[in-house]
């Protein structure tokens, strides 16, 4: 390829409107950030002036005159100011930051803060005088990418004043209430006093120590004050406060324990400040995932913000900070469990669900909390510790229906049975043996076969033909009969259903309606299931079952089928199409045959 004559090197041309579009649509999440950016510039200017004048206190003034289209908003500071060269280099050159070689002292790093004003204003006027200079500079920037720069005849105070008038899209923001709210939101913890004034008067805020500085939670009034602060900023009741400190992140703060339950999926909304400027009031990812029950407010001096300064960059320092917060919360929980059981019980009562989730995946938490966590069972709803201290054998079942079916049987056997049908409960109960040395066994087929009493020999003899019929009939439902005697006598039969068997039933229900294309696929995945056959455990103490020991011909077969379906229904299991048909047909046939069953005279 032949290359034509090459031009001299040229500079990229920047379309300011395009840059502003990128900022407003892709970098900043809200147009209100101009308030933060202007406050940031003011704080940085005062910080710069304090470097050369250590005694300089510094003040920021915000004024709003008018509202809507006719409003003017002014941000003024008595910081270091800018000279003509500074204005040309830092204001009129996009991407150039004035923060030099010591970026960690300053809030802004990216040199694009002033551009945020063009999201809401077509014209930004800046009047400034640098400390030590005798000339005041006036700079007017326009959203079309042009600017004017001039030396003023009048002498402005040392510092900088930025004047904004809204463009149509910015008008809703340009009123006293909104600007004051935004200034408070972003700047209320800044170390420099901010004075806001409008036509009605003025008020000051900021310039105070952090609300949690010098906090002593052992002091009841301090605790009350900090809890009130937490409840105000998070608009939720709080039950406790935990101080946070990190040397590496140079951060302090408070973790508040919520006094109401919170669902795991609701995003966190922690409040985070960077060098006392608000980063976000709904920051997620600040605490470990398991800490659903806390809301944190922190100020960090040594975490890195993202480009939009609305979150922290996900780096190893943030990860460490997160782990430190997690460790702090764990230490508090551990200490509270040992020293304040009432507070601990209150905490568990509110947050047991996330604690159960946590304990299910963290052995240390399991050991710390397991005994406090509530479980439903034959002692009612009680902490696991109460069940462990009962001295009786402990078992659990994995669903409510199995529990309802077996609770009475368990009581008659002197067993404590726990209902593992609630979220995480089965998993937690299964872990007890490994983690706290107390085995809590599932009440499975093995239990039913071993713990339930075998029938008296004479009953077993009488039942021989019944059992032969039951084996044959139940084979067509992939079930197996077993004969036992148990209380309560009113229960004719129990159906044992493990998770694998329930899965198999689910599979068969799908096969009944699945397309032929999927039949082979279902067969293929069925090979992943362990081969499990449900047991139908007949109760020789039940009058109906005993009646069936007699030779009743075809009626016995029908009765066995009905008892099987009855056991399914008692276990709240959905009936398949074939089982529904069986129920219908068997009931009809019995009605037609006019079955009469009297209990044997014994």
């Amino acid at each position, binding site marked *: 390829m032949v290359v034509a004559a090459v031009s001299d090197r040229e500079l990229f041309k920047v379309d300011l409107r395009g840059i502003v579009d990128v900022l407003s649509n892709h970098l900043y999440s809200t147009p209100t950030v101009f308030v933060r950016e202007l406050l940031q510039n003011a704080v940085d200017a005062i910080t710069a002036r304090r470097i050369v004048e250590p005694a300089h206190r510094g003040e920021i003034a915000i004024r709003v005159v008018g509202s809507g289209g006719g409003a003017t908003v002014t941000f003024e500071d008595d910081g270091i100011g800018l000279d003509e060269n500074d204005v040309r280099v830092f204001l009129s050159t996009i991407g150039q930051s004035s923060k030099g070689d010591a970026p960690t002292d300053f809030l802004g790093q990216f040199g694009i803060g002033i551009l945020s004003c063009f999201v809401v204003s077509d014209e930004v006027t800046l009047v400034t005088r640098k400390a030590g200079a005798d000339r005041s500079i006036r700079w007017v920037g326009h959203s079309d990418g042009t600017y004017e720069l001039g030396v003023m005849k009048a002498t402005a105070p040392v510092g900088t004043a930025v004047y904004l008038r809204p463009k149509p899209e910015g008008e809703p923001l340009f009123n006293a209430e909104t600007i004051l709210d935004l200034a408070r939101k972003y700047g209320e913890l800044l170390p420099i006093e901010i004075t806001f004034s409008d036509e009605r008067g003025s008020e000051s805020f900021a310039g105070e120590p952090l609300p949690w500085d010098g906090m002593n939670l052992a002091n009841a009034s301090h605790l009350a004050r900090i809890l009130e602060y937490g409840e105000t900023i998070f608009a939720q009741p709080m039950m406790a406060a935990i101080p946070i400190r990190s040397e590496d992140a140079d951060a302090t703060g408070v973790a508040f324990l919520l006094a109401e339950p919170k*669902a*795991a*999926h609701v995003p966190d909304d922690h409040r985070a400040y960077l060098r006392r400027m608000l980063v976000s009031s709904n920051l997620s990812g600040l605490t*470990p*995932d398991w800490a659903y029950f806390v809301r944190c407010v922190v100020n960090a001096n040594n975490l890195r913000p993202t480009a939009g300064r609305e979150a922290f960059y*996900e780096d*190893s320092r943030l*990860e460490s900070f997160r782990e430190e917060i997690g460790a702090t919360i764990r230490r508090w929980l551990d200490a509270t469990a040992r020293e304040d059981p009432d507070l601990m019980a209150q905490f568990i009562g509110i947050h047991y669900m996330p604690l159960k*989730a946590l304990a*299910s*995946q963290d052995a240390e938490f399991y050991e710390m909390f397991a005994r406090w966590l509530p479980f439903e069972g034959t002692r009612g709803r009680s902490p696991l510790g109460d069940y462990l201290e009962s001295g009786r054998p402990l078992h659990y079942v994995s*669903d409510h229906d199995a529990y309802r079916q077996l609770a009475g049987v368990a009581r008659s056997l002197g067993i404590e049975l726990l209902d593992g049908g609630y*979220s*995480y409960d089965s*998993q937690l109960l*299964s872990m007890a*043996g*490994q983690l706290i040395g107390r085995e809590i066994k*599932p009440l*499975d087929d093995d239990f039913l076969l071993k713990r339930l009493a075998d029938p008296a020999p004479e009953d077993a003899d009488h039942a021989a033909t019944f059992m032969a019929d039951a084996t044959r009939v139940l084979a067509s439902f992939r079930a197996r009969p077993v004969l036992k005697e148990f209380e309560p006598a009113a229960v004719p039969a129990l159906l044992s259903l*493990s*998770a*694998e068997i329930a*899965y198999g039933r*689910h*599979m068969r*229900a*799908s*096969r009944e*309606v*699945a*397309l032929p*294309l*999927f039949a*082979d*696929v*279902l067969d*293929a*995945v069925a*090979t*992943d299931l*362990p081969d499990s056959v449900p047991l139908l455990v007949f109760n020789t103490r039940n009058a109906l079952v005993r009646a069936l020991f007699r030779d009743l011909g075809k009626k016995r077969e029908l009765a066995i089928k009905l008892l099987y379906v009855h056991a399914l229904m008692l276990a*709240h*299991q*959905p009936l398949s199409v074939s089982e*529904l048909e069986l129920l219908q047909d068997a009931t009809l046939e019995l009605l037609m045959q006019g079955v009469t069953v009297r209990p044997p005279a014994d």
Partner: protein
Amino acid sequence: MATEVDDFLREGALMPYGSERVRLHAEAVRVADLHQDLEAGFKARQQLIQSANLGGDPNLALVAFAWCLGQHDADPKRFPANGGGYFTNLLWMYKWVVERAIEHPAISRAKVDELLADMARRYTAGGFSLRPVRKLELQSAVTAQEAERIPAAMAEWLRLRRDSLSDCMACDVDMTSAAHLATHDLKLAREAAKPIFELRMTCAEVPTVTYGRFLLPLSRSGDDEEAQRLAHLLPRKIGINRDYVTPAGALVVYLVERRSRPALPTAQRHATWALVGETPLRRVTLMIGLAKASRLARDMGRGEDSLGILLPNEPATSFAEAEERMTQEAMKVAAAFDARNGHDRFSSTVSKHLAGDGEWWWPL
């Protein structure tokens, strides 16, 4: 009844993806079926498919999907394919089902082709792009380690238009990087995955699956810093969701090879995921990891320590007992895939990994 079904669905939706969410949505299905309410059963199963697919129980998702598709074909008006959201759209969910079918060695290639053809027919009938179908064909080549098919399959996928049924950009970028890894091009794979590593693209499973896929290739290539960073991020990302059994397996292998302090505890934490839950393909990395962890435990004199419960209703297994079992299970999965695919690439690769010689381009 409708309230009870909705209660279970709502409670499940509050849980993070994982076994508890699946259990609650399965309860919703049970209650609906108990009352013979087919519409409620259809709605509950759509939620269950999503929860099970993203919560590490793809078999359950497939079983529920088969029921839903059967009902839809029998009465499309009563059981519409489009539930109003992506994750309740049968055509969207069909992608998940075929993806898992590709990863299950008991499902023949001919059957996978039939499923793809049926999926393509439905997509065409609905006026949708066949991009997802072609992506699954690429995925088939990648999982079968048939690198020779990958370039053409990738080109065919990428030339098709995106529409509302196409995967998100993050998933597509993840697939592109996976395809480059499968052709042993780490440089191109890293280049492709850049938006994911810079967190400019994320979704439900990305970047977790991406981090898991890159951990070992990066470590093997000598990029220890990046591998360490991923290893540091992965535990929190994986959490308790069995869907991430492959990244969990990669993490175990990485930590074991470095003889890191968290190696054995990490193996213990995920042991129950190795033999049940996700598809065999997704679990085989963890099987390899647990075999290696068991060897490490033995070397450290901790062979009698408990690895954990490998299957429900089994007592806990020690590291010593688990080593042979995991080795056999991994080779069994590899043999099953080879039998399906008609070559021995899986067995050869898994053998190398178990011996410590593997380069970790696969499993992905």
